[in-house]
């Protein structure tokens, strides 16, 4: 008996919708096995991990707060991956965006008016875009591999932030703690819906929906998809691969930078040596789980945000290591990629006799 992959004539639409669901189910199964091995009741742990965060208002809001940066970054990454540009440095673009967005509240704390917040968000987007343009320009100008350069810049961005909050941007009245001054009210994203959620959630949803329309209905969206699937065909249509590399990196960087600024302005209220629990990397999983489609990414962002909250939940309630969250995230990406095979291929199980019979025809 052997297992063969048989190429489908066209993409299976059903599988495209089904494969993320199968992947989530397989991940839950694998997680149950890990819980069991580490000596915990798997059903209780799964409930605490995936379900309990949805049952209370505070944890639901916390999940949305975590989902927001993931969705925003994931949307930008989807545009990159659709057009075959492998930007894996969103974590660095998030950090540099946060630094740029913090220039006003940290260096000009007395600049407090209605323009403060919009300017901060604008600066954040510009900062993230500039950081993302480095690997993009190196790719278009020198043909340098963007995977490695964008990733290296993550480490550089982290060290830059570390330098700033320990050095020139340290709070003068902060007893030498490595943190910037606390942002004033004018530099803080307002809360919405009477809860603890900041304005970042509605902004993110608007961005995702606009991007979904752009991708599905406009020429730019068509260009992105064509250049990803067949760069040769795209170049005959007059699309520029280099132009698209720069566009997609700049967009992804801007969205990551915006997310970074909203994180420091809405959630942290100051700059710290570390401002992200790996949002930029988790967003890669979000982009793939969401089928590189902004609406799918909204759902996927929510699922991955659950893993952060659920991870904290099982840690405090059952003493499971908090690292279980990143294990589950990694497993999820694995299963998503494995299940995606089903979209392009059919799996055929053939008996040994049948396959030797075929061979004799050849």
């Amino acid at each position, binding site marked *: 008996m052997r297992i063969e992959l048989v190429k489908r004539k066209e993409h299976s639409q059903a599988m495209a919708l089904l494969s993320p669901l199968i992947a989530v189910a397989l991940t839950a199964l694998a997680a149950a096995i890990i819980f069991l091995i580490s000596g915990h009741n798997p059903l209780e742990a799964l409930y605490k991990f995936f379900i309990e965060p949805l049952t209370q208002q505070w944890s639901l809001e916390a999940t949305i707060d975590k989902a927001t940066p993931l969705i925003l970054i994931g949307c930008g990454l989807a545009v990159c991956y659709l057009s075959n540009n492998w930007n894996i440095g969103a974590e660095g673009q998030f950090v540099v965006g946060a630094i740029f967005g913090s220039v006003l509240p940290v260096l000009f704390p007395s600049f407090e008016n209605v323009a403060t917040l919009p300017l901060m968000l604008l600066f954040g987007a510009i900062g993230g875009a500039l950081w993302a343009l480095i690997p993009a320009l190196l790719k278009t100008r020198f043909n340098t591999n963007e995977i490695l350069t964008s990733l290296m810049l993550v480490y550089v961005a982290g060290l830059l932030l570390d330098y700033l909050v320990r050095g020139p941007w340290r709070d003068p009245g902060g007893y030498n703690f490595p943190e910037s001054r606390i942002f004033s009210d004018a530099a803080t994203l307002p809360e919405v819906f009477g809860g603890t959620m900041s304005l970042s959630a509605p902004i993110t949803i608007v961005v995702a929906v606009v991007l979904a329309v752009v991708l599905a209905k406009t020429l730019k969206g068509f260009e992105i998809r064509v250049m990803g699937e067949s760069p040769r065909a795209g170049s005959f249509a007059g699309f520029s691969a280099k132009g698209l590399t720069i566009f997609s990196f700049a967009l992804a960087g801007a969205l990551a930078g915006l997310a970074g600024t909203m994180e420091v302005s809405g959630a942290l209220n100051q700059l710290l040596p570390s401002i992200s629990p790996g949002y930029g990397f988790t967003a890669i999983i979000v982009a793939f789980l969401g089928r590189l489609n902004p609406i799918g990414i909204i759902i996927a962002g929510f699922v991955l945000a659950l893993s952060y909250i659920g991870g904290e939940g099982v840690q405090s309630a059952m003493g499971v290591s908090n690292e*279980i969250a990143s294990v589950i995230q990694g497993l999820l990406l694995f299963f998503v990629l494995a299940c995606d095979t089903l979209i392009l291929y059919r799996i055929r199980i053939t008996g040994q006799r049948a396959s030797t019979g075929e061979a004799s025809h050849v």
Partner: protein
Amino acid sequence: MFEAVLLTVITAATPLLIAAVGELVVERSGVLNLGVEGMMIMGAVIGFAVANQTGSGTLGVFAAVGAGMAMSALFAVLVLFLVANQVATGLALTILGIGFSGMIGEAFIGVPGLDLPQLYIPVLSEIPFIGPVFFQQDALVYISFALVALVAYGLFRTRVGLVLRAVGDNHGSAHALGYSVVKIRFMAILFGGACAGLAGAYLSLAYTPQWVENMTAGRGWIALALVVFSSWLPLRVVVGAYLFGAVSVLNLHAQALEFDIPSQLLSSLPYLATIVVLVLISANRRLTLVNTPACLGKPFVPDR
């Protein structure tokens, strides 16, 4: 002083060298495994854990090699049998490795580790200067050089190496000639995993004999860049690894000399140097095009 600097360069370069040589073989077979970082950190934590539990550094090293291979097998199944996207699968391997290692390593944080013993090569180790630097190292340093020699010879002087390069350059033709592309690539990926695991063991058993979360700190990615730097030639990996080893210990020695440079700037030098080197190499199109395996990163599904 110079002797001491050289010693730290060797310890910084060895893990890079081992991981990069392994990845070079993988890429020569036409597969791009971006999961070096994940396999390396699993090697580091498993190597440390086993050495700690059994009291044997040797067992730790073997366990680390096994861990790297197990991780790479996972990758191989996805990209070879399920034809998954190699870039994304490699990333998944890294994310998974960092998560798993953190979970396993939680029990070992702050636990004193086991340092691999130095092996003194008789006679040679007594040569002044050269002796202490090159012939009083732990076994893995010697193994790293043996690996380079083995890979350089194997790839370019043996039949197996010729077939492996053929698979990497034109998998269609290799398949038509009757070679099993999938089997050969599987072997190459396992070799790369073993090397990455070994490199991880070096970090947690020799470089800093302890377990620190995320202790690979991007070295797996730098190893990937070294393969590009070497334009897929094993001997050039040695040059690259030692160059990067030197850059990464600058931080250590600059602090001792009390230069007035922010430590973060010095820490970021290896990453910045990687970018500069990648730009210089890739701007030279002739150098890269001649040696780049033509099928690197391309999926292969055999026609039946």
